């Protein structure tokens, strides 16, 4: 779960990390009131999207009065902001964060992230933060310094001080930065985070370290032990997710909308990815990514199949299933049968390849449910048939449209 900046800052404050005063609002009028409450001068108005690189793409604006704060908020609210980190089409701005501007003598970078190779969290730091840090690190990797963290080991103060020293800090700033790194590391473990990034981290003339921005991702697998974060997760899902993707999630299915016309139902993420590759290689365009998890029941699968049927762009459906020990093919065949029984038939060609556990039985189940489909012995054959069907459907649809117009 990726959090918004304002949520991340609230959580990090609990660990003693300083952030500027700020308020989150969802209307221009509230932006003006928030700005007044924050003293009314030297303000920053920030689009709340859960992706980085906002500043360089118009998502961070400055204001010197409540009135200008309101007008800047008006330029962000309800708009979509696209950065290299958003999905295609950008992210919708539903909230803006109005915040006191901070005068900094230096902008630093600090993060804790999980390193997959070592299987350890890493604390990262740089003497110069900012959105362009990746490009700069590409040219000069030494600008990023890091130390590996050991979970459950509290005797790492010297390491944190060493990290602060390696990015050129000394004196009081070094001690303060070491304390901040330790707070970030503690937050990382306590919150079950997979990423905490403070960029930029301001060092003020008075020697304070203040997190000007914060990114925080929580490990979904650990939400069972965080009732508060679980509630936040459910709220954000309801409020912000694509409703179709959310419905799929609730039925043990990973679904991602895509722009093509071949609906795809697959069990398992790897096979799903490989199936998308095959569809594209065969000259087709997938309408979705769908990975049925092993925990899905036939009713869940029925819901997933209907999500595909309900997508008006879909002109052919490809089912590529390899039954395993946890989920035999007949469970999936049953799900497709249920979906088709409950839905008046839309005339979409359905191409099915099933192999592995209970594949034979699944074919009988499909035959018994009377679902009209093209059965293929091999996935590649099924992919080609589905792509060809989508193309044929699309041309017949086009010609009927042209005929009607004529």
């Amino acid at each position: 779960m990726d959090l918004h900046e304002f949520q991340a800052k609230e959580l990090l404050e609990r660990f003693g990390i300083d952030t500027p005063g700020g308020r989150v609002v969802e209307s221009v009028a509230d932006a003006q009131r928030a700005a007044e409450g924050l003293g009314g001068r030297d303000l920053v108005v920030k689009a709340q999207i859960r992706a980085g690189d906002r500043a360089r793409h118009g998502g961070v604006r400055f204001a010197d009065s409540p009135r200008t704060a309101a007008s800047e908020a008006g330029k962000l609210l309800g708009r979509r902001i696209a950065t290299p980190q958003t999905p295609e089409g950008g992210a919708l701005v539903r909230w803006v964060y109005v915040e006191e501007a901070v005068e900094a003598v230096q902008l630093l970078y600090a993060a804790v992230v999980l390193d997959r190779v070592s299987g350890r969290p890493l604390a990262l730091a740089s003497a110069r933060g900012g959105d362009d840090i990746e490009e700069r690190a590409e040219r000069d990797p030494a600008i990023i310094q890091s130390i590996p963290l050991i979970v459950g080991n509290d005797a790492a103060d010297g390491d944190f001080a060493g990290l602060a020293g390696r990015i050129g800090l000394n004196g009081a700033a070094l001690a303060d930065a070491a304390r901040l790194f330790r707070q970030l590391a503690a937050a990382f473990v306590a919150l079950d985070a997979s990423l905490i990034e403070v960029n930029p981290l301001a060092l003020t003339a008075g020697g304070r370290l203040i997190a000007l921005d914060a990114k925080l991702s929580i490990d979904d697998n650990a939400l069972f032990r965080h009732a508060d974060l679980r509630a936040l997760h459910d709220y954000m899902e309801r409020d912000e997710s694509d409703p179709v993707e959310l419905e799929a999630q609730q039925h043990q299915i990973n679904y991602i909308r895509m722009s093509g016309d071949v609906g795809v139902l697959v069990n398992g993420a790897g096979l799903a990815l490989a199936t998308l590759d095959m569809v594209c290689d065969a000259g087709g365009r997938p309408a979705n990514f769908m990975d049925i998890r092993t925990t899905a029941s036939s009713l869940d699968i029925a819901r997933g199949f209907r999500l595909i049927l309900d997508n008006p762009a879909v002109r052919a459906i490809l089912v590529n299933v390899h039954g395993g020990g946890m989920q035999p093919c007949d469970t999936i065949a049953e799900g497709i049968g249920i979906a088709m029984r409950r839905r008046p038939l839309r005339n979409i060609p359905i191409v099915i390849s099933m192999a592995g556990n209970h594949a034979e039985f699944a074919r009988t189940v499909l035959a018994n449910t009377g679902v009209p489909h093209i059965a293929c012995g091999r996935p590649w054959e099924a992919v080609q048939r589905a792509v060809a069907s989508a193309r044929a459907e699309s041309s017949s649809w086009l010609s009927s449209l042209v005929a009607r117009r004529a």
Partner: protein
Amino acid sequence: MAILVGRETRVICQGMTGRAATFHVGRMLNYGTNIVGGVTPGKGGSRHLDLPVFDTVAEAVVATGANASLVFVPPDRAAAAMIEAIRAGVPLVVCVTERVPLIDMVRVRQALDGTRTRLIGPNSQGLLAPNVAQLGVMATTSARKGGIGIASRSASLTSEIVAQVTRAGLGQSTTVGIGGDPVHGLTLAECVELFEDDGETDGIVLIGEIGGSDEEQAAQTIARLRPRKPIVALVAGRHAPRLRRMGHAGAFTSERTGSAHHKIEALLAAGVLIAPNAHNVGELMREALRSVRN
């Protein structure tokens, strides 16, 4: 010989009395796997599936001489179960549990340091040595004994490739699922080394996917090792939808290497044969073996 398991492998199952574990241990027993007992705290002294149940792994090891453990414990307790098996000195631990928290896996990796335990998984379908042993939840219908070693990050795609390899008339020495989680035990690179040293394996198939850097690490190992055996790799996800990204920190870790393109280039540079698509892995391996023999 297969890799990692053999006739002498004696398996216990942690969490054996659970519903899913009961079903799968039954399948594994039917397959001929030498399962010698189970561990469920609080149920020590009872019997389940006609096997003895123990309270702790240490007791089970002493009583049965077990040298492998299959962890079938729910995600909130899976890490503790893996750490218990590591501390009891079990040389092979296979964890099929999905959705284990990341920080828990960091603790498991810390517990592994300096031990001789090999961990497979979590979120792994397990490992299958046809006609020898099944330690996992995979389909076994299309597996046949043969000379291809398969190491993979994804369960259902593996079953498809196993079927292809069998259709190509080759069969498998061992199929290993290393699991799809960011922090896991055995790596693709280690599988390559094990298969290269295995007298029964003639060719190696690696099944990778976007994310992480297991494939890049394997490429490094292959470039250094220069294995005699042909290696065919499939990397899934060339046309995956683009997802939101948070911040820059990922770019400063191993994550930066995660694209399908990057993985394929690294493997190609190491001399690996890249399967253009998921449907031609078996054929490609058959041809590669033919040209090796000629």
